[in-house]
């Protein structure tokens, strides 16, 4: 092995001003990740994120498993958003195998993906709240997401890791009275999340802690290749659901939320605003969905792809999620690469934190909508 300097292991000159501070990897404020900071008094002068604490080699594992048996482990990187992480995989495998998804399954996929996006966003919002010292904002979202978890349990049979999407459709149809229950839950949920403005988003303490901290300009957001809420908070209108619609998103009635400020407050507000759009999409899909029909095409055992490659992407809770699948005519993918939003937004982190005060670490870091397990894969 070549000699290489490893993160955090460099020998450093003892300096009387600059101090190195390890945040994580087991500290709850950092997620499962270490952030190596250099601080001068209260100011961060250098920031070096060191992900990899929960790296599980998902991409390597995928090369050993058939297209169908890949489903349960591929959703593990982000279990709260498991439908959206399987979405590009299923779209890609469908393209490889030339499958046509039944119409009803497309709508149910959109509903499940939007419910999952809300479940993920609520969990993230809870964490964002508690790390800013706002216990109510932890309790409320974590309680309200139970509504959608119940709905997803009715749909899929599992509370978090659904394994609901399969190449060629979805695993099973929904129970008979699902549409009524779903509509009721979505209406109540929307009423609830409106109240978050009073307790959190219009709260002067939150505003004073997050406004004008960690500003990412539009140019930098594009240059660094950020995605999702981070990008849209910096004034770039880019959402895969609008720009490259997959399944039936083209027919759905919704808007994308774009803010121009680019600070932590804008970044934390975009996912919340997106939840209202998710409710709109779910209501629209429930209305337009065919009331009956098959939800899955029958697959041959151990299907094989051709000698080709695909790259498909969707909009997940954390931004664009792309999967590059290389097929060599075997029942297993030859190579599967996941390009995840968390990993892409991590590139912006040193840029945002350098020059900030140490106390601004939680509001800036969690506003990146970062999910360490997804970034590590």
């Amino acid at each position, binding site marked *: 092995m070549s000699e*290489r300097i490893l993160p955090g292991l460099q020998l450093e000159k003892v300096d009387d001003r600059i101090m190195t501070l390890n945040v994580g990897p087991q500290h709850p404020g950092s997620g499962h990740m270490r952030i190596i900071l250099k601080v001068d008094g209260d100011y961060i002068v250098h920031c070096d994120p060191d992900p990899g604490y929960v790296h599980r080699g998902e991409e390597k594992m995928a090369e*050993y498993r058939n297209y169908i048996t890949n489903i349960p482990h591929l959703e593990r990187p982000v279990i709260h958003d498991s439908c959206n992480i399987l979405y590009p995989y299923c779209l890609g495998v469908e*393209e490889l195998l030339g499958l046509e998804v039944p119409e009803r399954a497309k709508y149910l996929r959109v509903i499940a993906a939007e419910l999952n996006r809300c479940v993920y966003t609520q969990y993230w919002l809870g964490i964002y709240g508690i790390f800013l010292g706002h216990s109510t904002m932890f309790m409320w979202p974590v309680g309200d997401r139970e509504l959608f978890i119940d709905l997803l349990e009715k749909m899929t049979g599992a509370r978090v890791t659904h394994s609901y999407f399969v190449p060629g459709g979805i695993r099973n149809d929904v129970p008979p009275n699902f549409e009524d229950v779903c509509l009721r839950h979505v209406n109540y949920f929307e009423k609830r999340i409106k109240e978050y403005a009073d307790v959190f988003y219009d709260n002067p303490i939150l505003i004073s802690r997050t406004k004008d901290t960690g500003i990412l300009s539009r140019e930098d957001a594009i240059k660094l290749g950020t995605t999702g809420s981070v*990008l849209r908070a910096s004034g770039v209108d*880019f959402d895969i659901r609008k720009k*490259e619609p997959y399944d039936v998103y083209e027919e759905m009635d919704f808007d994308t939320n774009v803010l121009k400020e680019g600070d932590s407050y804008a970044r934390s507000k975009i996912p919340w605003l997106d939840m209202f759009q998710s409710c709109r999409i779910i209501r629209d899909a429930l209305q337009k969905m065919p009331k009956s029909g098959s939800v899955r095409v029958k697959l041959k055992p151990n299907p094989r792809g051709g000698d080709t490659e695909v790259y498909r992407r969707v909009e997940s809770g954390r931004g664009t999620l792309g999967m590059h699948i*290389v097929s060599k005519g075997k029942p297993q993918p030859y190579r599967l*690469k996941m390009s995840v939003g968390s990993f*892409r937004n991590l590139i912006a982190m040193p840029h945002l934190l350098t020059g900030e005060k140490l106390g601004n670490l939680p509001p800036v870091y969690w506003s990146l909508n970062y999910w360490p397990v997804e970034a590590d894969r």
Partner: protein
Amino acid sequence: MSSTNNTEIEKIEDTSLVSDTEKSLSDSISKKFPNVQITYVNPNRIRVNVKREEIIDVASFIRDELHFDHAESVSGVDYPEDNQVEVVYHLGSYTDPSLSKQILALATRTPREDIPHPGNDNTKLPSLYDVFPSVSFHERECFEMLGVYFEGNPDNRRLLLPEDWADIPPLRKDFAIKGR
């Protein structure tokens, strides 16, 4: 989109699926760089194979003239039978609305050695960091996972693997998972 073979230069049969945008993009690349091989032009997807000496010029052209502005992913693929490692940059555009559907896959290959010494052997590529700064962490990941050293990337330290990892790069095909 069909699962047709595209190992050789074979453009998609049904040209009605391919829009003018893709055609004009691939034409302008092949006009400027005649040595470049356009592997396929599918709806919303173009794949360009370049030699490693040319990659910086082609990438700069793609950024300046075709307005692709960021890299979505950098995926390395190991081909032991060809004795090569391939690196595919998936490039996208935020600034040009007509390109928001497009992903341009810019692929290049580098020789592969049976006993790798990451960073000290022939498996090297010029980094695209100066052209697309968004590749920084992706190239770092590619280096530790496939042993492709990117010359010019300011940071080639380890990212996801443990500090005491002493085996060969794990996404090489000759690295086998135990029991599989």
